[in-house]
């Protein structure tokens, strides 16, 4: 009987330690996970339809420095009904290319399942992110002059140069983005 309790205690201790370690790991590696994704380990498109990753004040600088190039980021909200059309412009620009740059959507006002409800409106989306923090602060980290209008699109070219536009990007912008591939 004693050994049963000993074994039980050991098993539970192991479980507790495991849970605690997992929780601590999740906390510590929150940013690491996010950055790993921004570094180009974006999931396959089917997985992208099921997941949304956090995007905080540090995400943008990291994406520019370490993220995939070229890439496109479309910042949107749950009530931006003009955003899917802008995303379709991005998708049309890359859909016939052999090497398709990642097309990411960043949801600003909702997260989790509420954000994912919009995934089907962004055909060809590589990964969805969601703001995780005070929206004006994150917006300022992305662009201090961005007046909270969506769609806000940033095209990062192969050399890391950015073009930014409110609304759908023009054909000329898309051409420059993909030329510097």
């Amino acid at each position: 009987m004693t050994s049963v309790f000993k074994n039980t205690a050991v098993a539970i201790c192991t479980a507790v330690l495991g849970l605690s370690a997992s929780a601590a790991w999740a906390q510590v590696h929150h940013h690491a996970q996010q950055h790993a994704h921004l570094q180009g380990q974006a999931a396959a498109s089917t997985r992208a339809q099921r997941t949304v990753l956090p995007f905080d004040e540090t995400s943008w600088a990291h994406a520019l420095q370490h993220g995939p190039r070229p890439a496109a980021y479309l910042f949107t909200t749950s009530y931006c009904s003009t955003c899917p059309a802008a995303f379709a412009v991005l998708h049309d620009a890359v859909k016939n290319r052999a090497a398709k740059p990642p097309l990411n959507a960043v949801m600003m006002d909702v997260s989790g399942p509420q954000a994912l409800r919009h995934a089907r409106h962004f055909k060809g989306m590589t990964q969805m992110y969601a703001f995780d923090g005070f929206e004006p602060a994150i917006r300022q980290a992305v662009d201090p002059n961005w007046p909270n209008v969506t769609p806000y699109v940033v095209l990062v070219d192969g050399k890391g140069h950015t073009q930014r536009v409110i609304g759908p990007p023009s054909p000329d912008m898309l051409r420059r983005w993909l030329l510097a591939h």
Partner: protein
Amino acid sequence: MNILNRWCALSILAVAILCALPPAGAQNTAKEAAKPAASSQHARHQRPQLATGAAIAPDGRLWVVGLNAQAQLFVQSTSLGGAVQWSEARILNTGSDPIAADGESRPKIVFGPNGWAVISYTMPLAKPYTGFIRMLRSSDGGQTFSAPFTVHQDRQEITHRFESVAFDGQGVLHTLWVDKRDQPPKGSAQKYAGAAIYRNESQDGGQTFGSDTKVADHSCECCRIGLARNPQGQLQATWRHVFDGQTRDHAFASVGAPANRITRSTHDDWQINACPHHGPGLALNAGTSGYHTVWFGIRKVNGQDQPAVRYARLNAQGEPLPETLRVLPDARAEHADVMADGQNVAVVWRSSEGAQTTLKAWLSTDSGQNFTLKTLGQATGYNDHPRLAQSGARMVVVWRNTQEPQVHDIRF
């Protein structure tokens, strides 16, 4: 030894159970994850829904309506004139309604005659960009409220969102909202720019409603609607409008006028197919029978795009008086609100710099000829847009953060 081992095992078991339970702050996330529509890896925390409505009741008490941390609709009130002492928050029965309470989409409360009061909100539906306008009514000054009901007759799963509600001078309740029933069918060659503004009215404080009536075609899709009474007590409305297919300026109309009888009230000529999430404000300029208005827009100035929140006065028909146009003295101004009493005019807005947000006011005592800039407060982290509430000459700003709805008296 056996007893010790048992005690040890039970203690560890209790710790393990406690560790496995989600923390209080994770309850919403857990609830959401249980919904069948989608799953998520994003479980760090939920953004607080702070968008709050405010109004001063006929007895002079300030009321607010919003969502608590559990996404339940609550009301609370305080007397004005002394220290703010909020009553205990009262949770209202909204059944299983999800409630939009973010940015320009917020619960609202208005008071009318005969003890009437109504609370409105947008209930998002499962399909993105869709919603119903829901309402709770009271006939005892807000002591009790009805169960929620849908305000409009149209029940398609489409956009009915961004409602505004007000009683006119005759006690008629008006509800206006952004509506997409006039969109051509999907796949159709027809194009329809933006959405439409629809309205209805209730003669009995929200017990019964007239038919849904179109105010105008081609509104912007996602901005609040500004309302103000004219000197005769009739409601006037302003909203962001899509002119000529792609120019997002503002329209003005008398509520109750035939459909599409609108006046263009701003001329930024902002040609964009985008959602600014930033609707206009409107207040009566009593001295001239015209109006004060504030709005956000981007206009070309010396060939450069100049985004700004602007102020101007309109004539009685809603046409802008060009010489009155002013840019608010803050390049980071967002979501301005305006109210006026006699020659006193208050414009308030929030201005964020990183995690810091400042509440500012621009005050005039000569009907908007001259303004004085004041800082009313500061906050770190999450906060709502500032909301002005008025009863006669008394004006207050309600500004909610994660701790409380702050109240700032406007002193001219």
